[in-house]
């Protein structure tokens, strides 16, 4: 982490953290075509907290969470999720771990060929195999009500607006009751009102489902609304870690350019 030039902002010490470590990353490095995208990243996510990872486009934010769920394999470093070393898991163990993690994609990634109902049933039928048809139906209706789209059950993804797609995508993610949520740019491409609604929804999900979340964003309003703790990435390195006040009060020019 870089030293701040004018006003050093303290990072939160381990003793102040609320719960157990859900994710611990040490010395993560990842590059593409001889270009280092992540250079020695370390972070911890604690139980019940929302960690916002801020940074401008190309700073490696999305690469970071894709490494956490092993959509990308890191070049170096260790990633422990719920006490398990992600990089040493075999396919079966990885699938078991992924059942406890929800991942909201930037594009929503709804299955185009399926209705909203089928999109929500897809992970449920594969991950919660013991559920009866009645329980599946109840669960689908419950999460749709939670995201405020109970009447969208039979719609196709192409019939949904950008905000609705994000909500349905969030519903598909929380339908499996994950312990950890990873949000990749949840408010990108949405109008300010819908962005605020999604941010509020992220907080509701945290409270209702008791999830621990990493929220990747460059939207300051989303960060302010959702963050318990913020980590800023700059050129593939952790530039600053702290709470929202630390960032707002900082006189560092790079941080000020984000929070102006």
């Amino acid at each position, binding site marked *: 982490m870089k030293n701040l030039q004018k006003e050093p902002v303290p990072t939160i010490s381990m003793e102040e953290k609320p719960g157990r470590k859900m994710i611990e990353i040490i010395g993560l490095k990842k590059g593409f075509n001889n270009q280092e995208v992540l250079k020695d990243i370390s972070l911890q996510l604690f139980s019940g907290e929302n960690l916002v990872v801020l940074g401008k486009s190309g700073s490696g934010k999305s690469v970071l969470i894709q490494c956490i769920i092993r959509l990308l394999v890191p070049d170096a470093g260790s990633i422990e999720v719920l006490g398990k070393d992600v990089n040493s898991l075999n396919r079966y163990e990885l*699938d078991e771990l992924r059942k406890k993690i929800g991942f909201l*994609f930037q*594009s929503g*990634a709804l*299955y185009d*060929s399926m209705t909203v109902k089928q999109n929500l049933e*897809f*992970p449920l039928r594969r*991950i919660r195999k013991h559920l009866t048809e009645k329980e599946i139906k109840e669960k689908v209706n419950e999460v749709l009500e939670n995201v405020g789209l109970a009447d969208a059950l039979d719609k196709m993804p192409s019939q949904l607006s950008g905000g609705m797609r994000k909500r349905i995508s969030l519903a598909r993610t929380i339908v499996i009751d994950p312990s950890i949520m990873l949000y990749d740019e949840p408010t990108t491409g949405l109008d300010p009102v819908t962005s605020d609604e999604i941010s509020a929804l992220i907080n509701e999900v945290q409270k209702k489902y008791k999830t621990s979340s990493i929220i990747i964003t460059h939207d300051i309003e989303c960060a302010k609304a959702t963050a318990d703790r913020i980590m800023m990435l700059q050129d593939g390195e952790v530039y600053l870690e702290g709470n929202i006040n630390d960032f707002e009060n900082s006189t560092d020019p790079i941080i000020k350019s984000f929070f102006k």
Partner: protein
Amino acid sequence: MKNLHPVIKIKSFATGKSVKISEKTLEKTQMATEFFSDIGNMAIFIKEIFKETFSRDFEFKEFLRQCYEIGNKSLPLIAITGAIMGVVLTIQSRPALEDFGAVTMLPGMVAISIIREIGPVITALILAGKIGSGMGAELGSMKVSEQIDAMEVSATNPMRYLVVTRVLAATFMVPILVLFADGLGLFGSWVGVNIKGDVSIVLFLSQAFSSVEFIDFFPALVKSFFFGSVIGIVGCYKGYNAGRGTESVGVAANSAVVLSSLLVIVVDLIAVQITDMIL
């Protein structure tokens, strides 16, 4: 001699010395590298398909859905193609046989042509266009819109769910569609014969099948399985390995059709050689 292409200096891997090389040569070398790495990647892809085919939790429902998508939805296209193929082949062959006074051999000749070669190859080429492009575009757009990644993080193996089911469905459906096209081709031939004559369907079929033997039928059916595998594997490979941009979807669909059509012809050549050696 004047250099037609710009020359650049690069360090030789072998000697460590600086050598001059034209940009055109470098470009060709990169193309060759991409070509060979593509072959290597496809070999790994095929190995993965085999591995996932025989793994537990086979996606049987999705396999049946793909059989319906590939088989049932291709029926009208194959029916029209097969029937026209029979009519045209009969009309075109008649003058040549008339010259030798051998018009009565027309049903038999057309039946052998359709069953041995034209039926399987034309059907496979039509399906390479329909199924191959469909798989390339569908999986390519799923890749671009992160749907394959979404499947992966939902603890569902996309290779097993998307690829194995499509490849197997193509492998089993193409031979069935070939048989269907053969049948419609013979029907079309009967129609073609009756344009200038009056032959009952029973007489036509008895003349046609008196010329056809099991060794005409069996190799054609076996190679149809390989045609189906090739179409499925190439379509899925191109779609599954599409780039991240939207233009990659078009590239994946296009290259799936081109490569699978080419490979159908190559497989046919190999199959004919093997059949010729064995029978």
